[in-house]
């Protein structure tokens, strides 16, 4: 089958699920019951087509991976020659993303069959999942920067709907609003960046834009280089603003505050949206425009690199102090995306220089599997103990053997222990960082130590430690629909590291040979093992040691545990400043000054009417006076004019 049809079918199935379940799901009893099965089947169809497309792309097209526009349709023509085209761009990056998104989404669909089984809004849940998957797929195949912006907004709204899924819960609604508004703010930057790049590049089309703006000879490049604001060229502005959008979606510091709260959504949703797919959209966006970043404005990549490593370290520190299992995972996601981001930041363009680019997407790829596994595992655990708090768990390894083993595999993978998938991708990232910027490399090493520590802190507290009385319930580990995704994802987390990723995905489409430097790996792996051992020491058996350490650290610990008070800073800026100093005065001025002016006008009219009314007194003598005065003045006027 043609690639175009494959892409269309891949997108159409989740869209169909959304429309079918969204419109008729609440009225038809039959659809309400079968929503899960219908959604999952349609998702399986989507996965089937996507995998055909991707595998055909990767296996047949050797050795160079070209970029193909599968189709393009002018959707909205602007008068100035610009247009928004709806199209599909197939290259190594989008083919890989298609595979990841459809697979993880399918796993989450299957898992939710068991997890959401008794929910009264079962059909809506699957409708939203369909909407999300459709939007995410549309995002990854976008051929036009405005098209990606549209799907970008659509994933944002599906994320909003899913975070706020339990809409009767105040905290869920608040979290959903927060996620939407913070990312919307970031998207403001994205939009202005698009307008700037599009205006100077004279196109919104990705390939045209990249071709023009990464070519120093082109007139567009000259124009965008000359135009500047505040001493910074329009190109830099455009790219940084686009990155701002990416940073918002990918929860980079300081736009990360929505991600931990987003955990209010159902856990499988967190696995899909807030771990594996939507949150890496920012990485994908930078990767999409990478030639412009790397060739035309490499200094912007430095900024991206520093924001990435800072976010990675920052989030890892916070993760060590959190007690809610999903929040630990959320911060760990932020930290891992930081890894992907700085890997892009340290990368160059072309051949071996682009190793960081390949490493970043490799990590995106492996991370999707082990992180969604961690979340689904967490879902199974929460399903079992009915709590998110680590202190309600403990000793679960005997009760939930499959969850236990798969969770362990994922923890090992994220900690970078060979031969699990995360090891290979993290090695590639560290290697790229080492060659480009040692400072970032050392910070990254420390972060991987923290990663191993906090992941195993989680692991030991959940599965070892002492068993809590409350969780002694009879019901088992969960249905098979919950176990199968765990098993499949665990297999992926073991095996997928062996894929020679950089031979498939690279900056210029030419394969880079993968090599594993054993000597180089010693330091990170040792640090990872140390982190695990430290966590084992502290958390394998319930003890007071962790508390003692926390006490010893004093206020520093409290500072980290309260997430560096970033939320409070935002609260202050929005509530105290924007509301109190902008919104309230605006409303006040409107009511009192502007409307007051019209009111005054009305009163003035009324007042003068009372006054004028007095003239029409009905007294004949007065009228005669006015008459006489009138004649006199007219006569004198006439006299004056004639003279």
């Amino acid at each position: 089958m043609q690639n175009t049809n494959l892409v269309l079918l891949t997108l159409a199935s989740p869209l169909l699920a959304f429309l079918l379940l969204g419109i008729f799901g609440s009225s038809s009893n039959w659809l309400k019951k079968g929503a899960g099965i219908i959604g999952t089947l349609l998702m399986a169809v989507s996965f089937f087509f996507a995998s055909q497309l991707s595998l055909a792309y990767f296996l047949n097209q050797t050795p160079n991976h070209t970029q193909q526009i599968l189709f393009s349709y002018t959707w909205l023509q602007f008068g100035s020659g610009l247009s928004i085209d709806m199209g599909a761009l197939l290259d190594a990056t989008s083919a890989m993303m298609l595979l990841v998104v459809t697979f993880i989404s399918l796993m989450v669909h299957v898992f939710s069959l068991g997890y959401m089984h008794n929910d009264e809004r079962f059909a809506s849940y699957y409708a939203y999942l369909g909407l999300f998957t459709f939007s995410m797929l549309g995002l990854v195949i976008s051929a036009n920067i405005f098209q990606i912006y549209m799907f970008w907004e659509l994933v944002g709204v599906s994320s909003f709907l899913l975070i706020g899924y339990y809409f009767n819960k105040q905290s869920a609604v608040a979290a959903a609003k927060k996620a939407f508004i913070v990312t919307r703010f970031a998207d403001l930057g994205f939009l202005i960046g698009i307008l700037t790049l599009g205006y100077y590049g004279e196109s919104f089309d990705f390939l045209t834009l990249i071709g023009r703006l990464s070519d120093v000879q082109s007139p567009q490049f000259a124009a965008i280089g000359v135009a500047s604001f505040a001493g910074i060229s329009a190109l830099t502005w455009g790219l940084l603003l686009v990155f701002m959008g990416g940073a918002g979606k990918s929860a980079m510091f300081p736009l990360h505050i929505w991600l931990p709260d987003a955990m209010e959504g159902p856990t499988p949703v967190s696995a899909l949206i807030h771990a594996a797919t939507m949150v890496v959209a920012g990485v994908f966006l930078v990767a999409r425009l990478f030639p412009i970043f790397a060739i035309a404005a490499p200094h912007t990549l430095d900024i991206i690199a520093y924001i990435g490593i800072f976010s990675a370290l920052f989030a890892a520190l916070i993760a060590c102090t959190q007690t809610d299992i999903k929040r630990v995972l959320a911060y760990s996601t932020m930290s891992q995306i930081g890894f992907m981001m700085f890997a892009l930041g340290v990368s160059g363009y072309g051949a071996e220089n682009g190793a960081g680019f390949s490493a970043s997407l490799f990590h995106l790829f492996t991370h999707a599997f082990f992180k969604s596994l961690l979340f689904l595992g967490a879902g199974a655990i929460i399903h079992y103990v009915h709590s998110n708090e680590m202190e309600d768990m403990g000793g679960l390894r005997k009760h939930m053997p499959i969850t236990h083993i798969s969770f362990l595999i994922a923890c090992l993978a994220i900690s970078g222990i060979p031969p699990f998938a995360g090891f290979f991708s993290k090695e590639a990232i560290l290697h790229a960082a080492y060659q480009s910027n040692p400072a970032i490399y050392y910070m990254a090493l420390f972060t991987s130590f923290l990663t191993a520590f906090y992941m195993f802190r989680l692991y030991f507290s959940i599965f070892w430690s002492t068993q809590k009385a409350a969780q002694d319930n009879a019901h088992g580990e969960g249905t098979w629909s919950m176990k199968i995704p765990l098993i499949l994802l665990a297999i992926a987390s073991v095996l997928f590291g062996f894929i020679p990723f950089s031979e498939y995905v690279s900056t210029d489409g030419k394969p880079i040979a993968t090599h594993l430097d054993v000597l180089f790996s010693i330091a990170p792996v040792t640090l990872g093992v140390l982190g695990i051992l430290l966590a084992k020491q502290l958390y394998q058996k319930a003890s007071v040691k962790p508390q003692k350490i926390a006490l010893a650290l004093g206020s520093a610990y409290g500072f980290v545990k309260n997430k560096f008070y970033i939320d409070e800073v935002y609260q202050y800026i929005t509530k105290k400043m924007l509301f109190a100093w902008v919104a309230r005065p605006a409303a006040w001025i409107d009511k009192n000054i502007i409307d007051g002016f019209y009111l005054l006008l009305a009163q003035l009219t009324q007042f003068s009417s009372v006054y004028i009314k007095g003239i029409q007194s009905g007294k004949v003598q007065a009228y005669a006076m006015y008459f006489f005065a009138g004649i006199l003045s007219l006569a004198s006027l006439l006299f004056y004019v004639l003279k």
Partner: protein
Amino acid sequence: MNLLLLIIIPFLTAVVILTAKDFKQSRSIALVGASIQLVLAFFLLNQYQAAKALVQTEAFVFEQSFEWFPSLGIQFLIGVDGISIAMILLTALVVVAGILVSFTMEELHKEFFFLLILLSLGAYGFFISLDIFTLFFFLEVAVIPKFLLIGIWGSGAKQKSAMKLALMLMGGSALIMVGLIGLYYFSNETGNRSFNMLVLAQYPISYAAQLVFFPFLFAGFGVFTALFPFHTWVPDGHSSAPTAASMFLAGISMKLGGYGCLRVATYLMPDAAVHYAPIIITLASIAIIYGAFATLMQTDLKYINAYSSISHCGFVILGIGMLNKTAIVGAVMQMVSHGLMTALFFAAIGMMYQRTHTRLVSQLGGLLKVMPFISSVFVIAGLCSLGLPGFSGFVSEMTVFVGAWQNPNFWYRLATILACASIVVTAVYILRAAGSSVMGPITQKNFLHLTDAQWNEKLAAIVLLSGIVIIGIAPFLLTDLLSSSTDVLVEKIINTF
């Protein structure tokens, strides 16, 4: 097609309503009349496209002219182009939806529907007029019913609001009148003085006269479209009006102003438009951002939508002020989009108010559970308002933004950034409103017994929603309709640059 039908059918409908015996009859007559008009509007679109395929040079088609006041050179001159057809379609959709949500009424039903239809007649006449005197006549026809609709069937401080609205709109009309007389008086350079728009467009009045009279016309029509600082009738007027009247006000009446700013002020006095563009853009960007922030502080759902209308209509003015093709197409798209969306919003708010008897955000809560359809409509209208792709709001706002960005002037860019920033504020107030009124826990026990939408309410929502979604998914349908007409308009402006 004979354009007179567009006026005759509402007129006949209005007359027949007066013979109705009871409420059911009058509402059925109104509904039938509005539906015929809707069919006619689509037929007009079809005919227009066929006519355009044959003759591509003519700006206006289906022109007809009747002598009215020959001594003053006033004709009854009518004709349509793409822009007016878009507005006629919008009007027809909103009228049908407005009647569909007015299925319960205690008193004076005949008069109510009579006035609604009369209002729509004014709007149709306004959109097809090519003679500025005729246009002004129809504008006034559309103003008077509003006063009565709010004053008699309104809620809250209805008399005060009705008075305020009528006085401010009359003030706007007075400004327009001055502008029209100026246009007429100074048009004698062509031999005869004329109110004919085609003549006036071909032979614009002198630059000095344009500079004097442009502000009158633009501000006058600006009052109708809530141009800052002439917008204060909007919040009170919309909030006191009964649901259908709110829908007509925001969906149709405010568009009369935007259309007038474009078709009369800018089209007939392009040089002055270029001259005053910086001021227009400044006022528009203030309206956008200030309206958005003022919305944040509102606690009544209708006030929220009214203030947000000020913000959204700012995009119309901004697009016109940017004076390039993309932005002007965007402005017209925004008129259509905002008309549909805000009517949908008011319809949803009206349905909620009818059941819960409150519009205060703090008293509502958890309605999604008891009335999923109405609440979903509310949320969808909100999502359209905050510019979600897939709905008309996104495409029209983006077209305005892309057009606005074409001007590399620093201040214009700043105004555009402010306008873009409003979409964040919009998200905040929409989500706050939706978050606490339809989501969250159910706040009052009696909400549990409330019923969801009736068939007529559902149909009204679907009518408006289909317009919003069709434009959102296939914007090229609308831009194709508009672009040839805006070409004619913009060419004149470019010539003056």
